[in-house]
């Protein structure tokens, strides 16, 4: 049993807003859904499967299904943090293959800018989280838990701040072509390492943007996809993984992409070297570097050398990444970037990325993400997508 070629992504929509004080979170979900269905050439009445995660308001899929007045026979609210929506595409493909649904809708939305929390503030203590009695006093935020990984990676492999900075530099080269991007100015390595230090060794420009917004995807059976007018994006393989503190056997230099990546490549029957374009979740620069190693684009520890000197810049380097500007420069709606990773991979496979960053003959792409907190507990999801 495989999901390979059992489903296609036929609709993708990134909400253009980056600041939405006058919209509700449910509204952003619904506007994103409407955009993706219009992109697919389908209507709300066609949707019989719905996927959302922890950013959905109220009681998740029940609240949103009611708000949008959907008539569903399959619901899934798997939450892997920001990686959820990458996993949702695979879950949708599996549900479609099993006949549980025919047209699956995936939505994400949120307003961290308008609601005044940025993801860099200490997370509220959740009384019944089993780790809280042991960790809450130390104020594990977001940036400091990623900084712990970067610090250890530097110690273990000699990775430098300048190498990490190249990831932001590459994203900025792409974002200048995206009129919706929050940060459109090209930055240099010196700009990144000269920006204020937030949590050693991560600087302000090692971090993603904080944005309001949303996105949505529509997945359906290949036979239905062929009747639609849009270029078809095939779901070829997927993998998931998770990693925590392993009972105290902590290793901060490895992410759960070490499991999600190989599973996705194996199901698709391809290798990292075959990938023409990669969407790599970029909550922080270190997130990208560790995933590239764990996915097998380079050896463990060689990520710093791999990303340096513009190797991730479209038209210049070996592995064009995040050609929309990514979370680092474009958009990170709801502090969860997974759906924008899939959306830009769809654009690339359709040949609809900005001409300045479109990868020629892009017939095989990857979307991969890390959700949760890399330095304590996180999930990973990887998708291999192809063009029909």
């Amino acid at each position, binding site marked *: 049993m495989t999901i390979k070629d059992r489903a296609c992504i036929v609709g993708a929509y990134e909400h253009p807003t980056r600041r939405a004080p006058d919209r509700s979170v449910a509204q952003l979900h619904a506007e994103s859904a409407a955009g993706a269905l219009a992109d697919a050439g389908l209507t709300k009445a066609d949707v019989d499967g719905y996927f959302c995660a922890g950013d959905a308001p109220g009681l998740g899929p029940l609240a949103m299904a009611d708000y949008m007045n959907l008539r569903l026979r399959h619901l899934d609210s798997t939450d892997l943090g920001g990686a959820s929506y990458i996993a949702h595409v695979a879950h949708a493909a599996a549900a479609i293959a099993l006949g549980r649904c025919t047209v699956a809708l995936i939505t994400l939305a949120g307003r961290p800018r308008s609601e005044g929390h940025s993801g860099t503030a200490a997370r509220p203590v959740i*009384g019944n989280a089993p780790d809280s009695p042991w960790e809450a006093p130390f104020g594990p935020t977001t940036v400091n838990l990623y900084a712990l990984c970067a610090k250890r990676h530097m110690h273990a492999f000699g990775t430098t701040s300048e190498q990490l900075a190249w990831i932001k530099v590459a994203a900025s080269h792409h974002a200048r072509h995206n009129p919706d991007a929050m940060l459109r100015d090209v930055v240099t390595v010196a700009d990144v390492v000269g920006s204020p230090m937030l949590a050693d060794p991560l600087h302000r420009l090692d971090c993603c943007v904080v944005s309001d917004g949303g996105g949505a995807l529509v997945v359906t059976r290949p036979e239905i996809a062929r009747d639609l007018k849009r270029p078809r994006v095939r779901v070829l393989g997927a993998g998931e993984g998770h990693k925590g503190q392993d009972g105290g056997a902590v290793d901060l230099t490895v992410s759960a992409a070490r499991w999600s990546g190989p599973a996705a490549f194996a199901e698709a029957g391809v290798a990292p070297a075959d990938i023409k374009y990669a969407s790599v979740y970029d909550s922080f620069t270190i997130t990208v570097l560790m995933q590239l190693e764990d996915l097998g684009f380079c050896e463990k520890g060689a990520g710093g050398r791999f990303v340096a000197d513009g190797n991730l810049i479209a038209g210049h380097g070996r592995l064009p990444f995040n050609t929309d500007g990514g979370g680092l420069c474009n958009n990170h709606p709801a502090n969860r970037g997974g759906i924008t990773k899939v959306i830009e991979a769809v654009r690339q496979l359709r040949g609809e990325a900005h001409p300045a960053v479109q990868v020629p003959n892009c017939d095989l792409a990857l979307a991969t993400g890390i959700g949760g907190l890399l330095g304590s507990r996180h999930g990973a999801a990887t998708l291999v997508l192809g063009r029909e």
Partner: protein
Amino acid sequence: MPDRPWPNPPPSPESAPFVEAARQGRFLIRRCTACGRAHWYPRALCPFCFGETAWEEASGAGTIYSYTVLRRETPPRTIAYVTLAEGPTVMTSLVACDPDALAIGQPVQVVFEASEDGTPVACFRPRPAG
């Protein structure tokens, strides 16, 4: 360091004996009675084999596995992972130290700091090598 009180650790039936011992200055960890491995954070069931676990007093000695300094805070606060002499690596904060003089591998020793309501919190401070 820091000047502000530590946020309270939320109470849990699984952490209550640790807190009680810490009030007497003893640092406890939990070890499996079946497979013999120590783990962190402490749990009723062994995270390696699901065997039963029991408290034991640990040395409180360890080395810095990784750390970071939150530069935006005054004074800057640290968060760290420390690998205990008994094996497990624990999330903590490094106190009574110059943040700019810290290094991975540096020997540290447990020290209890009081949270806002007086609950002891297991932090670590540098200790001389050897």
